[in-house]
């Protein structure tokens, strides 16, 4: 506890590659939840003790696949009721996961535990610049209240420039 400021947590974490369970990286983090005001996102500092895998090849394949689509990508219910995700939608889902991480961070307090439950709807928005843009309608599950919260997010992505989320 830090008087007048909030509560700080010191964490030691292991990051595990979702696509390769044997690939792990240790890291440490400091998270500061601000006193009183629940409208400010917690401060987060992360230090990686190691390197993240290079994903250029997969990134570029996905990037070019989407760029060369004639019609804008549109999809819904990922995963579907039975938990299935068509293989070509896997990157779309992973992107939503990353982007929802940002949304979750911005909305977390010491009393919340969010998970991405489902992508209700995703629509690609064609851009004249080099970014890919996707409009997502996602459902977040909050563990304590058990509520399902719909959330609209616009996600920009580029293999070299990373992810940007505008709510």
């Amino acid at each position, binding site marked *: 506890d830090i008087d007048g400021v909030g509560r700080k947590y010191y964490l030691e974490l292991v990051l595990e590659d979702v696509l390769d369970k044997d690939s792990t990286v240790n890291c440490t983090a400091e998270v500061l939840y601000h006193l009183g005001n629940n409208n400010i996102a917690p401060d987060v500092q992360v230090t990686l003790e190691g390197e993240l895998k290079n994903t250029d090849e997969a990134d570029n394949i996905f990037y070019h696949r989407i760029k060369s689509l004639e019609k804008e990508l549109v999809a819904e219910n990922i995963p579907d009721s039975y938990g299935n995700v068509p293989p070509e939608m896997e990157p779309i889902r992973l992107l939503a996961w990353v982007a929802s991480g940002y949304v979750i961070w911005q909305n977390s307090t010491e009393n919340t535990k969010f998970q991405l439950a489902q992508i209700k709807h995703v629509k690609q928005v064609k851009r004249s610049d080099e970014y890919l843009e996707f409009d997502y309608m996602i459902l977040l599950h909050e*563990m304590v209240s058990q509520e399902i919260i719909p959330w609209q997010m616009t996600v920009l992505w580029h293999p070299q420039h990373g992810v940007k989320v505008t709510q």
Partner: protein
Amino acid sequence: DQVFHIVPETFQQVQHLQHLCSTLLLDLWKPQLPEDIWAGEDVHTRVPASLVKEVKDSLDHHMISYKVLIPDVQELVDQSMPKERNSHRQVPEGYVYTQYHPMEEIYQWMTQIQKSNSELVTQHYLGKTVENRTMYYLQISQPSDKTKKIVWMDCGIHAREWISPAFCQWFVKEILQNYKSDPTISRFLQNLDLYVLPVLNIDGYIYSWEKDRLWRKNRSPHMNGTCYGTDLNRNFNSSWGSIGVSYNCSSEIFCGSGPESEPETRAVAQFIESRKSDILCYLTIHSYGQYILTPYGSTTKPPSNSEELMHVAEKAAAALMGKYGTSYKVGSTSLILYNNSGSSRDWAHMIGIPLSYTFELRDKGTHGFLLPSYQIQPTCEETM
């Protein structure tokens, strides 16, 4: 219905085709709009069965060449439907335990299971749901002179946790398939009776299949039918309404108008109360999170037999992990998860059932409630 592949050669043919599409309201697959039809370019259109002859005659009359691309659209649709829902046989011999089943099929499964295993299994009436559906539990009991203690397990108290009823069905199958050959199961049944309620919240489960996959509560109407559902796992008479609940119907953790206000809750509570002196263990199966939770949720004060509770749970978690390496956290709800009151597990312990546990099955949030069916088998196997 058929899909036609047409290539108009001349401007007149293009015009005729456009006319045909607009007047007959044909479902143009390629291009998107009639105005995008050009001479020499492919046209694909779906023609309803009733109009096939008329369209063919018209194309012939105007000397427009065409080919039938898809002779039977419905056949293609049926083939492309996810295997999940077609071709289920209702008999347990053909019953697919690695897929999720709607309530209708689960009802049929229960009947069949009793029929094919009548020496061991009896189906019993438990009560009725809000929407007047019948709740049944299965009693698995080896005939013997001695009175046996009871292990009770219920699944599906929360509608969206589909892996839970899937586990109850799997569990029953495993017991029945292996009780003669497996010494552990055989000894188990010599000394204990198993009572399994495959779906507690039947109305909610059906609703999650038909209307809203992520529905949690039951379907009791409130406020003149403007709001639905009580969280059955906040509705039991264990510190009811005190913490970790909402008094507002629109919340997912609405505890109801009073303890045991819901018929589903009453059906379970009445039965368990009547047999409590014989019930050794109460298990309630949920998802997700990978936890084995002990009492209580309403207070951090440990239950009287907390050492025993933890010891057994830890052994269970270790055995589970031994199968596929899946790690489960063990502890009391109020300490490792969150506070809640009115849970069935707390209530069971409070009325005297010594071993009372909530299992939260796979996973940890990657899929959450939408656990893919290929995970049904490993989840169930490790949980056995």
